């Protein structure tokens, strides 16, 4: 079936131009029609120079997307009909699905709205495709997890938790920053932050590992979402090149956005880290391994080619890379400390999990984290675990808990600081670049500090051991015990 308009006088590029850029025209009042184009100080002299690799025509798009969704929903239906949730490696794995739904599905929705805005604000039809794609991803995730929601806790009120729970503040802050940004910044954020850091890890390696753990539903949804993101990634890199080549004045602006969004995405990826290292009963690659293969090495290559354009690796690159040996462990330990009030379950890793972590993080894991995790297991076994009930102080930029700032004294101190309390120097730097904007976040943080999981949702939180999820899963599987 030939869905390409093959005219002998037109090559592929000319065809693409005729189907996209050429549809627009020079309107009589461009400033009134596209006011946001001049919002950020970016200068564009020739829009037709923008390349968009992998850009399909609408016909090709419908055909390919229709094909993808036909297959995907057949899998989703079959999984539900066969009670596929019974085939999960272990009910602990369901908590990775919860975190995906709670943190990342709403981000896809926000990306959908942000791209719709960028498409309209810039007058770029190609970005309209991305807006539709992100709507697709948001919906795929809702539909794939819908079945799990019927049988497991921790999914039913994901929108409420996204808006109010401190654990998800890092996700909502990220989503809202994207939504609040001007159109050029949005597209750079997606190109150098969201796609290369979050999507290339969460929607690639994690989804493959999910399949291995019996989750054909979410993993199929994730992998097919990623097929769109490949297009976005290619378009995004071309977008960055286009911006810096249009005018030298654009270079420092783009570099600042690169520095900011790479870092914000790195902070957000700590949630992907715990999914990869702690929530997969059948292990796959470690978080550090997939960071190296899918984030670090590809980005290093890309920035190497961008040197002649005047761009450099993000200013916080070294610090970001160095973190990856520790971040998943630190994040998991913190979640365990706050387990009672979380909208999902946590647990002490068993002996074989600890051994796997030792092997994957030689030296550092045993020296820095194993003792704490073993201590945790011991406390749980003897019912001696201290329960943290106050929400932690959240970083004024990324909204992850600030290390060492826990308890009501810390919260009181943070109140005085009015949101100016940071987890790291890069976060402080981002804040200072637009202090007015980021100060607004203090009110949201304060709201989250005072919000607690309602009593009616107690079954959603706490340890996995003794949970309704654990009990139900055993019962459904005929009382089988899991390691």
């Amino acid at each position: 079936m030939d869905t390409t308009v093959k005219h002998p006088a037109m090559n592929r590029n000319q065809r693409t131009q005729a189907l996209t850029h050429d549809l627009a025209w020079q309107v009589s009042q461009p400033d009134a029609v596209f006011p946001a184009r001049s919002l950020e100080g970016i200068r564009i002299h020739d829009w037709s120079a923008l390349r968009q690799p992998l850009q399909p025509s609408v016909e090709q798009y419908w055909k390919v997307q229709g094909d993808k969704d036909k297959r995907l929903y057949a899998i989703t239906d079959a999984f539900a009909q066969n009670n596929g949730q019974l085939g999960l490696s272990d009910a602990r794995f369901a908590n990775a699905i919860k975190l995906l739904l709670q943190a990342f599905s709403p981000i896809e929705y926000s990306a959908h709205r942000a791209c719709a805005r960028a498409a309209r604000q810039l007058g770029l039809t190609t970005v309209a495709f991305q807006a539709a794609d992100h709507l697709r991803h948001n919906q795929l995730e809702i539909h794939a997890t819908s079945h799990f929601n019927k049988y497991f806790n921790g999914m039913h009120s994901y929108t409420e938790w996204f808006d109010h729970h401190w654990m998800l503040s890092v996700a909502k802050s990220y989503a809202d920053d994207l939504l609040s940004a001007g159109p050029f910044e949005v597209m750079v954020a997606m190109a150098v932050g969201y796609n290369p850091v979050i999507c290339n890890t969460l929607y690639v390696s994690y989804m493959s590992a999910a399949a291995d753990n019996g989750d054909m539903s979410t993993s199929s949804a994730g992998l097919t979402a990623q097929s769109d993101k490949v297009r976005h990634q290619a378009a995004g890199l071309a977008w960055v090149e286009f911006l810096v080549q249009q005018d030298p004045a654009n270079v420092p602006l783009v570099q600042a956005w690169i520095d900011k969004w790479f870092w914000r995405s790195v902070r957000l990826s700590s949630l992907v880290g715990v999914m990869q290292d702690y929530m997969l009963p059948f292990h796959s690659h470690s978080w550090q391994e997939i960071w190296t293969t899918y984030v670090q090495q590809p980005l290093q290559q890309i920035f190497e080619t961008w040197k002649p354009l005047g761009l450099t690796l993000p200013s916080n690159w070294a610090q970001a890379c160095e973190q990856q040996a520790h971040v998943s462990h630190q994040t998991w330990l913190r979640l365990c400390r706050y387990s009672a009030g979380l909208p999902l379950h946590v647990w002490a890793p068993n002996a074989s999990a600890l051994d796997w972590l030792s092997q994957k993080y030689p030296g550092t894991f045993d020296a820095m984290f194993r003792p704490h995790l073993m201590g945790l297991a011991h406390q749980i076994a003897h019912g001696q675990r201290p329960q943290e009930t106050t929400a932690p102080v959240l970083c004024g930029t990324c909204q992850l808990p600030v290390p060492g700032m826990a308890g009501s004294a810390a919260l009181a101190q943070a109140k005085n600081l009015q949101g100016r309390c940071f987890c790291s120097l890069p976060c402080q730097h981002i804040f200072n670049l637009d202090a007015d904007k980021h100060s607004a976040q203090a009110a949201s943080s304060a709201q989250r500090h005072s919000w607690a999981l309602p009593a009616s949702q107690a079954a959603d939180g706490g340890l996995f051991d003794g949970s309704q999820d654990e009990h139900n899963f055993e019962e459904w599987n005929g009382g089988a015990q899991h390691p």
Partner: protein
Amino acid sequence: MSNVFIAFQVNEESRPVVDAILADNPNATAVYSPGLVKIDAPNSLVIKRESIEEQLGQRYDLQQMQVNLVTLSGHIDEDDDQFTLSWNH
């Protein structure tokens, strides 16, 4: 190291594509994990529509490749007949 890579979902549809890539790129290596195949190649990698058609025994539109595409790394150059990934700009 300047590897390019491309990864696909593992299924009947992507098999001729993977086979074509390995046939046309002697220095490429394929690594399988559950549901995924990742093909690495030093410097560049080319995917030819004609080669896929040979493997498949039917006409093929390179656009169809996107159905099972998961990720890639490298600068893209494409037309109706071939798709190239490289680090040469």
